[in-house]
């Protein structure tokens, strides 16, 4: 690629415009404050904030994390200060940076989801990411996201009230993710993000207790990457709205793998705990790959897999 043709990293994910396709994944990046000490948040395309609910939530009993081979289980259980405090305290902080804000929204009931969407539609954010896939709460979350009727009802009701790009986050804990994805698309989702965590469990054989205080938790990190790549590939081929891919991404190369599979953008979570610089560094690594391979526009990477 000639020098003049610097890789163009801008993406437009169904109305969510970002200067590059790298987003910090919800629940792994707080509201950005903590990592602002480590790098300039403006280097990222977007930040998906910690999962929000109408009222503050206290979260699950500890321990909330267990380490597994190449991954982690978490059972945070959506601890958050509530959507109002988010709007009041966190948006102004994040707005100091040139980075898209994705508000990750959860609820226990259909009404909760609709209220969240109404409230967030008036807030200064760039996208609402409906979390229909949290495995760590008793009500809502994954329950809605793992059946077609469930997802159809929540997404279509939210759609009516939503005045922001509406991204729907899918759970991998389903038999056929393409059916769920198509139901979300049909119900009015502007884009999809996947995967949330896989339901898992670990036992301490010394004490014979589950390591997590909540018994089960959500698996993320490198271990899940092949499952996530497969689902992104399947979903990207099943729907015509853009897909944001995640699950175990730990480098720009991993991000490229998801984009080749069909992702329009990517999110990175767990790997950032090990190396916070993976977030900004991946942006440069994607650009490096594009330059080496002669891709001028990052959008051309999406789905550029060559099948056998």
């Amino acid at each position, binding site marked *: 690629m000639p020098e003049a043709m610097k890789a163009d990293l801008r993406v437009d994910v169904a109305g969510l415009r970002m200067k590059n396709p790298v987003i910090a994944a919800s*629940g*792994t*990046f*707080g509201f950005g*404050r*903590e*990592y602002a*000490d*480590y790098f300039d948040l403006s280097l990222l395309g977007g930040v998906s904030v*910690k999962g929000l609910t109408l009222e503050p939530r*206290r*979260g*699950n*009993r*500890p*321990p*909330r*994390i*267990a*380490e597994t*081979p*190449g*991954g*982690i289980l*978490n059972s*945070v259980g959506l*601890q958050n200060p509530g959507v109002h405090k988010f709007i009041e305290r966190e948006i102004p902080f994040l707005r100091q940076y040139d980075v898209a804000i994705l508000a990750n929204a959860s609820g226990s009931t259909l009404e909760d989801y609709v209220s969240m969407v109404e409230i967030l539609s008036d807030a200064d954010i760039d996208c609402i990411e409906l979390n229909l896939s949290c495995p760590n709460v008793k009500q809502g979350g994954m329950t809605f996201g793992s059946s077609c009727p469930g997802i159809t009802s929540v997404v279509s009701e939210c759609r009516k009230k939503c005045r922001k790009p509406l991204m729907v986050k899918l759970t991998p804990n389903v038999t056929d993710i393409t059916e769920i994805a198509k139901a979300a698309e049909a119900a009015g989702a502007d884009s999809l993000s996947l995967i949330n965590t896989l339901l898992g469990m670990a036992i301490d054989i010394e004490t014979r207790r589950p390591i997590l205080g909540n018994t089960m938790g959500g698996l993320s*990190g*490198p271990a899940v990457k092949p499952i996530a790549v497969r689902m992104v590939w399947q979903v990207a081929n099943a729907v015509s709205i853009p897909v944001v891919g995640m699950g175990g991404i730990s480098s720009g190369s991993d991000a490229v793998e998801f984009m080749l599979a069909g992702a329009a953008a990517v999110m990175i979570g*767990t790997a*950032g*705990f*090990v*190396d*916070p*610089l993976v977030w900004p560094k991946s942006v440069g690594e994607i650009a490096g790959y594009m330059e080496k391979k002669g891709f001028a526009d990052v959008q051309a990477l999406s789905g550029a897999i060559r099948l056998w």
Partner: protein
Amino acid sequence: MHRERIVRMERLSDDIFRMVLQSGRLTESAKPGQFLNIRCGHSLQAYLRRPISICDVHAGDGTVDIVFQIRGPGTELLGEMKPGEEADVMGPLGNPFKPVNPGGSAIVVGGGIGTFPLLYLLRTMPEVKRTALLGFRTAGAVVMAKEFSSVADCMEIATDDGSLGHHGFVTELLEKRLRTERPDCVYVCGPMPMMRIVTEQCIGMGIPVQVSMEQRMGCGVGACLVCACKKRDGDDFSYTHVCREGPVFDGRDIVFD
């Protein structure tokens, strides 16, 4: 993140190692009670970083000591590191102990690996009357007695099996002392049951107590909310986070259960 050179590795006991890092950055910034979050290699079995407290700081030669016990795969890998190699550390992280004012008096109560962060705390309060009460399983597990006795005005050791010092729990040593002394602050770090007893003793007597909590961690910086610890919240409780709000807390704020 930061790559710090290991200048020495010492085996202090069967399963306890001291790692000495050369780092002007750390000697200048590390405060007692803070911790480092250290990467233990790229193994399948220890993906996350491990939190290890700052044990001592030597401004003179620009080195920092951390001391750790081999507990599982992560600390095992740490123990295999060699002088000359670089450790990948985040930190210093967390909130430090609040010192007692010069002229006052302090008692530190440590159990097992909980003794390590207390050494540097004592060193930073030279004008305070300092008592160290340290509990270990057995005589063979006692480490850094010399270091502690050199920075404390008075040191007592308890072992569970009576093989050295007081036969019994370190909490009993504290109880005895508090019959006759009233320190300006008690600092405690160790197993949960020990911390609970000490905290209750102190609160009962109106003595300020600072506790250093442990919890399994993810990010170490306050972003993932996994390192939850119960905190009094009116009549109820909420979850605070050990890595960012702690690891050092006012004992009155913590709910032990």
